[in-house]
């Protein structure tokens, strides 16, 4: 690459980014060190300037804290009404996002970006509201105090001793197009505070004491200044990139932070973020799932997920590795990703283990080689609320009782063996007992068993007997070795069991996923894919599932198994949001947590193709990170399968179109042939009559005239059939049903056919009690004529044709049978297809007659089929259902 020319890929990326950016609204943040520096004031003042310039501007939500100077700026600006939300008997007012979206101004002011919305709002946090405003292209002015920034949270806590609970992901501030620092020297601020300009007076004293100490203010101001400088720096770098200035192109560095389940992990993440920012490095946050993960409490597992989510919010890439050794896995991943720095916390393990085995940090340092390792202090700041203590797995007294029982048994056995065996063999019996305990119970129980074993051995078998006193000091060595061996064995045994349990759990997860993907792979059609997926998800998560897919008009409609989630307008709204934003929402998430169910987007390669809704009766189900993770995997698998199904359906539709096209062209060729042949015969016969008529004898003339007549009739039949067929296909055909004696219709058909086949013997067999039948007489007459014509055409003229009818199961069955050569087995169904000409020897039809018959019979709700007669010849049967009540014809009594 020539010097000074930016990488084209980077530029392309940047163009895409800018395109997306151009459509987005612009975000301006008025940043302050603490409350009271005048952010809202500055924002309103800038707004008034914009207003004077003619910008369409609305005040979405501004809190003046009752400050007179600030309030004086409001008049003249359009203020959106707030949305009242009732929460625990109190009415809170919140920013009305929907109103703002409907009003759609060019610029909107939304104060206090880090604000947490009242429960029942769409988003948990106000910055999410702001993101939605930006997404639709509305520019936003907002304010922020530096202490609310997520990555500075610990630092602020350390400086001020006050825990800030409302935090804002750094990425939000990084997205700001403009950051304006509202600065006020600490002295001036304290002065304003004293004058009561910052808080309403009665709150002021308390606020000063706890927060507004001069030292705090100086530190916070520095943080704010530094952060603003950072953002200026980012802008500068963008400028340099845009203008091909290559002076200080930073080497891409990558650092990895290792987190565990402890509460200090959050600090590691935040430290890594600051570190990565200052290095301009990409950063990864890794969690290593060891077998021990399986026995973590729910709270610990949730904390792991929270930590990873926080890391993502701060802009990190997160990975979950699995293996038995944290340090090995981490180092392997670090090497794979070419990581230059590792950040790790000082864990709070029990001291003896540190001493004995070393900490993870120690292991990392030992194995890191070239890579730098940074160890972050794990000391707890007294003000950080310590997370709930580890919830131990519910442990009963049974394992301990069992440990005591097994040691007692061992003692009994040893007592029996005592006279015959050496002491060392008795120790083996005890060790066996310890292994037994360890293989079934808690670590505590096996430790108890180890200690009890040593004690019992001493008491019963070491002289002097039945006392803990020891005569020979060399037994102390025996005890020590025995204890260590027992402890080590029990430790290993427990560890092996955990490994097996973890493997089992992973195995179950993999098996469930495998079962799903295997079934999905073999399932054709979207409907069956949805059915299979909801069955699997219902089984694995014991929850009700609904799939929402957009219909033709883009409206989400529910598909799913019985017992699916009832979707009212709120739930549909949530799913709509999920579909549009391609992000999870609903219960257990930060967005619209008030929903009854959890909604995940079905993300496929073409973007979101639908929504998966899941609702469990157990309120704690779906809360563990593993389950959520697994659910997401299931949703992704299903999404891909649905996409595949949709593509297959599209392909099928395309194939049908091709098939239709093929049929159309075969129609054209068939019809043109059938039309041309009689036309050629007529033209030929008439021209010979015209030109050579005088010289022809009467017989020949008559023959030619007959040809013209016959061919004209044939043409007429063909045109009639084509018209009927198009009437059928266009759906214009309607059967006008009335009650008829079948005999009458058969009679009419025979009369019509009789003219064309004068010397043909046609036998009718109709029972006397044949009831009236609801039909369209014209259509059924046509069916009979076609069938009779067909029979006459495909059987020798000296044989007879039979027409019969009978009543059977609420329908009349009519049959037309001939004595011809019958049909090929494969033709039995196909003869009813349009333009299909059977494999019969002297077929000359256009292949329309039987297709029309089928169309007409189906219009009557009946069925038509062909069969071969055992005695030779073909038989066509059709049914006419006897639906409705026959008309009541009063008998004559006059």
């Amino acid at each position, binding site marked *: 690459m020539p010097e000074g020319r930016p990488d084209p890929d980077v530029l392309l990326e940047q163009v895409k980014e800018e395109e997306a950016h151009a459509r987005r609204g612009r975000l301006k943040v008025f940043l302050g060190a603490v409350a009271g520096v005048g952010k809202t004031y500055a924002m309103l003042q800038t707004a008034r300037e914009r207003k004077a310039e003619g910008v369409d501007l609305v005040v979405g939500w501004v809190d003046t804290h009752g400050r007179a100077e600030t309030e004086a700026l409001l008049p003249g600006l359009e203020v959106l009404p707030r949305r009242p939300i009732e929460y625990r008997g109190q009415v809170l007012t919140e920013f009305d996002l929907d109103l703002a979206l409907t009003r759609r101004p060019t610029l909107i002011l939304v104060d206090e970006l880090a604000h947490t919305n009242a429960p029942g709002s769409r988003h948990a946090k106000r910055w999410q509201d702001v993101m939605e405003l930006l997404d639709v292209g509305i520019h936003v002015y907002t304010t922020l105090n530096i202490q609310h920034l997520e990555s500075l949270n610990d630092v602020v806590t350390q400086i001020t001793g006050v825990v800030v609970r409302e935090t804002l992901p750094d990425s939000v501030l990084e997205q700001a197009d403009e950051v304006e620092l509202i600065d006020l020297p600490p002295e001036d601020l304290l002065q304003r505070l004293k004058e009561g300009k910052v808080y309403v007076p009665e709150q002021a004293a308390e606020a000063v004491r706890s927060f507004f100490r001069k030292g705090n203010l100086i530190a916070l101001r520095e943080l704010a200044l530094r952060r603003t400088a950072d953002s200026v720096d980012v802008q500068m770098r963008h400028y340099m990139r845009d203008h091909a200035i290559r002076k200080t192109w930073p080497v891409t560095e990558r650092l990895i932070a290792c987190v565990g389940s402890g509460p200090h992990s959050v600090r590691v993440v935040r430290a890594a973020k600051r570190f990565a920012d200052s290095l301009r490095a990409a950063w990864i946050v890794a969690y290593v799932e060891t077998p021990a993960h399986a026995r973590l409490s729910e709270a610990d597992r949730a904390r792991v997920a929270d930590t990873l989510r926080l890391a993502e919010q701060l802009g990190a890439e997160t990975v979950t590795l699995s293996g038995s050794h944290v340090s090995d896995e981490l180092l392997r991943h670090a090497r794979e990703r070419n990581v230059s720095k590792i950040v790790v916390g000082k864990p709070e393990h029990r001291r003896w283990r540190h001493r004995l085995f070393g900490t993870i940090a120690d292991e990392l340092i030992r194995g890191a080689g070239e890579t730098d390792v940074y160890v972050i202090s794990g000391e707890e700041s007294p003000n950080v609320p310590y997370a709930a203590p580890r919830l131990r797995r519910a442990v009963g007294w049974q394992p301990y009782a069992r440990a005591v029982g097994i040691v007692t048994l061992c003692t009994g056995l040893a007592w029996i063996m005592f006279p015959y065996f050496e002491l060392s063999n008795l120790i083996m019996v005890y060790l066996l007992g310890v292994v037994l305990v360890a293989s079934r119970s808690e670590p505590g129980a096996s430790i108890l068993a180890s200690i009890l074993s040593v004690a019992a051995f001493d008491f019963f078998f070491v002289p002097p007997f039945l006392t803990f006193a020891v005569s020979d000091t060399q037994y102390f060595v025996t005890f020590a070795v025995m204890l260590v061996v027992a402890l080590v064995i029990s430790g290993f045994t427990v560890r092996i069991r955990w490994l097996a349990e973890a493997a089992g759990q992973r195995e179950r997860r993999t098996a469930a996923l495998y079962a799903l993907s295997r079934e999905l792979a073999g399932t054709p059609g979207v409907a069956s894919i949805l059915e299979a997926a909801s069955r699997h998800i219902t089984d694995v998560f014991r929850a009700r599932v609904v799939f929402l897919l957009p219909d033709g008009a883009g409206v989400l409609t529910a598909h799913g198994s019985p017992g699916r989630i009832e979707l009212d307008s709120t739930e549909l709204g949530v799913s709509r949001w999920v579909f549009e934003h391609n992000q999870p929402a609903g219960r257990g998430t930060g967005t619209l947590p008030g929903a009854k169910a959890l909604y995940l987007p079905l993300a496929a390669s073409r973007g979101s193709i639908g929504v998966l809704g899941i609702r469990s009766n157990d309120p704690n189900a779906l809360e563990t990170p593993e389950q959520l993770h697994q659910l997401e995997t299931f949703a992704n698998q299903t999404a891909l399968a649905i996409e595949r199904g949709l593509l297959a359906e599209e392909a099928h539709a395309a194939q049908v179109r091709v098939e239709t096209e093929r049929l159309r062209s075969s129609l054209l060729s068939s019809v043109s042939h059938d039309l041309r042949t009689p036309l050629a015969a007529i033209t030929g016969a008439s021209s010979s009559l015209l030109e050579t008529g005088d010289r022809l004898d009467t017989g020949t003339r008559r023959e030619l005239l007959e040809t013209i007549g016959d061919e004209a009739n044939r043409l*007429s039949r063909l045109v009639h059939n084509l018209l009927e067929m198009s009437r059928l296909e266009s759906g214009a055909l309607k059967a006008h049903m*009335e009650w008829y004696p079948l005999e*009458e219709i058969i*009679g009419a058909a*025979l009369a019509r056919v009789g003219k*064309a086949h004068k010397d043909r013997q046609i036998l009718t067999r109709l029972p006397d009690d044949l009831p009236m039948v609801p039909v369209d*007489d*014209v259509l059924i007459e046509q069916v009979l004529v076609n069938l009779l014509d067909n029979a006459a055409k495909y059987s020798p003229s000296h044989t007879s044709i039979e027409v019969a009818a009978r009543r059977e199961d609420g329908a009349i069955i009519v049959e037309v049978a001939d004595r011809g050569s019958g049909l090929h087995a494969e033709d039995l169904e196909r003869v009813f297809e349009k333009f299909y000409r059977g494999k019969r020897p002297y077929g000359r039809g256009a292949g329309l007659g039987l297709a029309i018959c089928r169309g007409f019979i189906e219009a009557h709700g009946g069925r038509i089929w062909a069969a071969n007669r055992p005695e030779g010849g073909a038989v066509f049967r059709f049914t006419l259902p006897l639906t409705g009540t026959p008309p009541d014809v009063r008998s004559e009594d006059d």
Partner: protein
Amino acid sequence: MTNVPDAASNTTHAGEARTEVGPMVIVIEDEPQIRRFLRASLTTQGFRLVEAVTGEDGLVQAATRQPDIVILDLGLPDMDGLEVIRRLREWTAVPIVVLSARGQERDKIAALDAGADDYVSKPFGVGELLARMRVALRHTTVGTKDAAEPVFSVGDLSVDLVRRHVQVAGQQVHLTPIEYRLLTTLIRHAGKVMTHNQLLTEVWGPNQADQAHYLRVYTAQLRRKLEVDPARPRYLLTEPGVGYRLAAE
């Protein structure tokens, strides 16, 4: 369907009915090919032919020429064929035979109910048309003379209208009053098609016009009594979708 040779065989039959000056026929038809073919065949049959291309022209010709019969195509360019029938029926009882395409049964019924005497479906043979015209012409002459002949007979069927006796092949047949009324109504219009409406109104009275199944039940009963094979009627013919016709010859 009757072919050209059939028409030729009918020539002598029609010739007997010819008077010194043949009956005058007005053909109202816009298709020149059909007019050409009708001109050729009808003039050889002794008809005096007047051609009209539009409905309006046809009405004027009918008023000035006083024809014996009108052949009317239902699909005219300038006005609805039904309208032509209605306007003709305002002042004349001249027989009207309608030309119409197959599959347009509703149009045929409308034309017949509006006063047309009979119809022929396109495509048709000239023999078929001549047969219809003959029947229509006979009815006008019968109508103008005294009442119908006292005995109607066709094939093996004979009906003594005075003594109310019905015989098939010399065998007395007992008919119910409605059956008899239905039969005599058909005899009055023998050879002509009767729509369901017309028959219901004449046999059951004007209030029963929508009870078409009555008609079907009674025709079926009549056939069982009169026909050798009811599924292959010789006398009581069905015109699918339109009505019934009693064979006249």
